[in-house]
Structures are given as structure tokens and as C-alpha cells.
């Protein structure tokens, strides 16, 4: 099947340079263009000060589209945060949340985005209540499928049912490639070592991860109580037994941190992409550490890209660098170099 796989960068990737004031919004766009990517994904709340007011302002939008032209970038995806617990004493009502979603759809559209990322905490009724407006504005709502969630799961079935019932073309999934981790990232393991983790405990955790992959991960269920769903998922995948083994081996806080964190990574069969391709229009190409030889520590880039090709995917793979969180307490993070390497690794897989 013919495919058209394009490369994008999520500006989430450059958060350390932005935090340090080494890059501003335009600087991030400039760096994105330098990698050879043709798309840009934006977290408006991250890099547009006084959100959302500037987006309403024509002068700001002129500047935004001017930058896109200057750096030859196409808006790929707008990452929204449905802040439905904005007040500590209550959740927003469904009606209030629908209005917030509509606001975000409108903001995305004003900046030229055709895709909007929403998070797993978005109630089904809010998505359904926004579909008509999404269609009117021609912005598709994509639910991020981020570990521990996965496609082809009881959790995803709930959304699939809604897609079939409404017949909507304006809702689908945005897989996060962190669901295709063959290993625990080396940057996490190295952080655990710096904190004093023992090699014995590290091995217990690494072996348990390898076993989960071999047996296949038990998938997460659909539950509005995300904390409960997550805990059930962890237990079903052998967390208790692993924690006990680490404890028995004399594991301290660093070992426990490593063991607990191992459950934030997961492995799905790349076949899941092929099975669900009709509902995938954007992808977060999550990564943790791309080495000098363009191999990524955890995410199986070549296998996943191969699945996208086979499926005939037409859309962006958008680099999302997340390894910095394991480095920044101890050393400087070089997201610019990491994104450059990741784009090259994806280019090779796509063109190879």
C-alpha cells in the first residue's frame, strides 16, 4: 500500500533549552527546520505567553505564519490540555469541558493546525460533544495513546464503539511510540546507578521487563478512575512479585525508583498500528536516547516505521524527546542534538 510518512518535531522536545532561555519559540522553529523536519507540533501553553490571548491577536498570528513560511514548516498537531480540574474544589461540568475543548479547537484552527491532541483524562462525553464543532472547524481530535494505555485493548474498545456509533471522521488515536519500548531506556538505568541502585536489583527489573515482553503485556482496562486502572494493570503485569524480589535483594530507594519507573514503559505489537490505521492521523515519535550511531535505546524505531509503511500511513511522525527528565537533575540536556539524531534515525527507517 502506498504511504506518505512525513517528519515533524514536537516542541515539547526542546523544553530544557526553553526553560534555560537558550531558545525561544522562534528558536525552536529554527532548530526544527534544521533537522530536516517539515512539520511542527506545538504546546501553546508551553511557549505562547499569556495563553491564549496572543492567538486571538492578528499581529501574533501574522508573526506565527511568517515564521512557518520562513522555516518551511507545516503545523502538524496542536497539543491541548483539557484543564478540567482547574479549581481544586470541583471538576468542571461536562458542558464547561465541552466549551473548553471548543475553545482549543478554535485556537488550533487559528494557528493552522488540522489535528488536536487530547489526553486520556478527557471524558467520552466531552469528545462526543465536540465532534460537530471539530467537523465545522475541520480539526480532528486525536486521543493520545500513551503507556500504560495501548491500542487493541479494552480501553481502546470503548472509544472504537463511539467511533462506529457516531460514524465520525473527526476523532481517532494519536499513538505515542513509547508503547513500543523493547527495553527500559538506558538513561533511566544510568540515573538509578547515580542514585546508588545495585546491579543485582537492576538485573531483576530488566529481567522482569524482558519477561513481560516475552509473555505479552496484560492490557489496561477502560476505567474513568485512571489511578485504579493503572494499579490493576501493574499488578496484572507482575509488579508485586518484582517489587518483592527487589526488596529481598536489599533494594533501597534508588532500586525502588527504578523498579517502579519500569512500569511507565510498555511494549505493544507493531501490528496494532496496522490494525488501527484507519483511526490514526498523527503520531508522537517518543524517544529517550538516540546514540551517535543513530540507534535509539528503547523504542523499536525500524520495526514501528515498517508497520506504518505496511499500513499505508499518511501522516507525521513527530519527534518527542523525553530522555531529558532523567538527566536534568545532574547534568545539562542537549535536546537539539538528540532531536537531530532522532530525525536522522527516522529518515533512515522511512527512506530505507
Amino acid at each position: 500500500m502506498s504511504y506518505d510518512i512525513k517528519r515533524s518535531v514536537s516542541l515539547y522536545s526542546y523544553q530544557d533549552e526553553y526553560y534555560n532561555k537558550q531558545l525561544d519559540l522562534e528558536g525552536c522553529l529554527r532548530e526544527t527546520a534544521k533537522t530536516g523536519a517539515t512539520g511542527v507540533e506545538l504546546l501553546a501553553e508551553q511557549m505562547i505567553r499569556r495563553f491564549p490571548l496572543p492567538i486571538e491577536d492578528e499581529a501574533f498570528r501574522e508573526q506565527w505564519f511568517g515564521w512557518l513560511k520562513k522555516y518551511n514548516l507545516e503545523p502538524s498537531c496542536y497539543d491541548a490540555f483539557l484543564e478540567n480540574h482547574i479549581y481544586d474544589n470541583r471538576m468542571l461540568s461536562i458542558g464547561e469541558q465541552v466549551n473548553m475543548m471548543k475553545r482549543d479547537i478554535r485556537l488550533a484552527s487559528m494557528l493552522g493546525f488540522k489535528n488536536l491532541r487530547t489526553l486520556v483524562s478527557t471524558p467520552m462525553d466531552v469528545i462526543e460533544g465536540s465532534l460537530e464543532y471539530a467537523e465545522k472547524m475541520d480539526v480532528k481530535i486525536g486521543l493520545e495513546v500513551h503507556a500504560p494505555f495501548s491500542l487493541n485493548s479494552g480501553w481502546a474498545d470503548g472509544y472504537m464503539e463511539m467511533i462506529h456509533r457516531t460514524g465520525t471522521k473527526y476523532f481517532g488515536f494519536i499513538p505515542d511510540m513509547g508503547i513500543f519500548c523493547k527495553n527500559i531506556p538506558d538513561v533511566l538505568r544510568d540515573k538509578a546507578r547515580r542514585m546508588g541502585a545495585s546491579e543485582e536489583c537492576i538485573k531483576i527489573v530488566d529481567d522482569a521487563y524482558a519477561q513481560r515482553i516475552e509473555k505479552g503485556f496484560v492490557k489496561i482496562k477502560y476505567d474513568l478512575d485512571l489511578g485504579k486502572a493503572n494499579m490493576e494493570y501493574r499488578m496484572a503485569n507482575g509488579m508485586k512479585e518484582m517489587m518483592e524480589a527487589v526488596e529481598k535483594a536489599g533494594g533501597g530507594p534508588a532500586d525502588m525508583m527504578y523498579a517502579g519507573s519500569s512500569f511507565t514503559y510498555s511494549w505493544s505489537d507493531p501490528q496494532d498500528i496496522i490494525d488501527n490505521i484507519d483511526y490514526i492521523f498523527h503520531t508522537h515519535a517518543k524517544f529517550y536516547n538516540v546514540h551517535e550511531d543513530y540507534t535509539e535505546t528503547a523504542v523499536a524505531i525500524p520495526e514501528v516505521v515498517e508497520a506504518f509503511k505496511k499500513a499505508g500511513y499518511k501522516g507525521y511522525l513527530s519527534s518527542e524527546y523525553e530522555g531529558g527528565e532523567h538527566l536534568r537533575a545532574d547534568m545539562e540536556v542537549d535536546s537539539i542534538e538528540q532531536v537531530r539524531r532522532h530525525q536522522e534515525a527516522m529518515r533512515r527507517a522511512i527512506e530505507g
Partner: protein
Amino acid sequence: MAGRQIYNPDGFKNIEADGKVTGFEFQFKAQYYRGITLSIVRDIKVNVDGVDYPREAVRLTVNGETFTLEEMRTVIDSDYRWEFGDYATVSVLTEGGLSKGSHHINTLQIIDPSYMPFQIEAVCETDFVIE
């Protein structure tokens, strides 16, 4: 191999009003990856040299406006977000402020993004000097 800077090294000072020292202040950045409304900052727990300061004594200033932690619960105005990468100023009202010399601060930032099953509790520690 220096890690991320959380506190403004030049931000630690005593607060003076009418010739009296009424407290101390410092500046730090939110340990999260986007700008936020102050309403989702659920707490800022300040401890200096082992001493906890009461919630009522803490104020936060962004863009020239100062709020108590209680007031922050309803602050959602675009002009008064805690922007990503920007310092906010924390003032702690305590008669006499801090003594001259070296101190150690341990602040807990509690931020509650709606989509997360757990709040972010960031421990922010450093040594500083009051001159």
C-alpha cells in the same frame, strides 16, 4: 556536569518595610513543562534550615501581582500565569527575616495538572547566602 537551575541565585533577600525586616523572599521556576494558571498550584511548602513556615505566611508574585496561596486557588487570568521557564517570587512573612550568612532551603512545589492521576511534588533544594 551541572544540573538544572531551579532557584535564581540572586533572588534570596530579606524584605524590609519601614526600616523593619518583615520576611524573606526568593525566586524559583515551576518544575513542569508548560505555563500554568496559579489555580493548579496546590501548595508551596517552605522550609529553611529545618524550620517550616506556615502556609498563611507565603505569598507568590507573578507579573507584578502578589497572591496568597488561598487566593491562588481561583486565579486563572492569562496575565498572571506562571509561565514556563520564568521565575516567580515567593515571599515569606516572618518577623526579622533570616540571619545574615549561609542557609539551606527545601521547598516543595505541589502542582496538579488535571490529566495526571497524581500531583507533581517537586523537591527544590539549594544553599544560599543572605548578605
